[in-house]
């Protein structure tokens, strides 16, 4: 099981702030493919953070991970 977090326009597109995924995709890349298909959203320009650290596509996932989908930030 892993937890997915969505923010900003992604949260509106997905319709959820937090989603529990019962299984654990192998990598960030695999998870992204699944999320794209399930919610029919583009993840272009979207960064991923695993447990509050930015993560590349090749990073492997572990049970219990919290994975955040981070659209281009616009703070400041």
């Amino acid at each position, binding site marked *: 099981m892993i937890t997915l977090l969505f*923010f*900003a326009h992604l949260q509106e597109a997905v319709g959820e702030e937090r989603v529990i995924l019962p299984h654990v995709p192998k990598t960030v890349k695999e998870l992204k493919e699944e999320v794209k298909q399930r919610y029919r959203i583009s993840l272009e320009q979207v960064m991923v*953070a695993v447990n*509050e650290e930015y993560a590349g596509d090749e990073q492997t996932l572990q049970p219990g991970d919290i994975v955040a989908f*981070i659209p281009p930030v*616009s*703070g*400041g």
Partner: protein
Amino acid sequence: MNERLFVITDKPISLEEVIQKVMRPEAGAVTTFIGTVREWTKGKRTLFLQYEAYVSMAEKMLRQIGEEIREKWPEAKVAITHRIGRLDIGEIAVVIAVSSPHRNDAYAANRYAIERIKQIVPIWKKEHWEDGTEWVGNQLETKAYPTGRPEEEDLR
């Protein structure tokens, strides 16, 4: 020091309070950056803004920026507060305060902080115009991150 130097808050920001965190007898130069809600952008009128953050990670990234600054400018001390929630025109969204014995460092580190905030801190701004709303996209526009994350080098 148990005061928190890097803060995300949903309350109005006290400029004085942020500045006080970096004031020191050995630092004669203090720079601040104050980001306020702008009413007019290219002729278009903003009514108010809404900021949202991934709060725990945003504070963590602010602390990381603090560490990057400590490496580059060891004598500088920095404090950053960013507000979230609804902000009206003229209200303060972010305050960055840097003190240093040397004014060059105080300017450079401050500038570095705001650029890094706009790269790596998970905060999003929703513009409320007269005719609708919009989540503001990547301010670097066509910037792509081939590694899937922003690199420190992107700033240079």
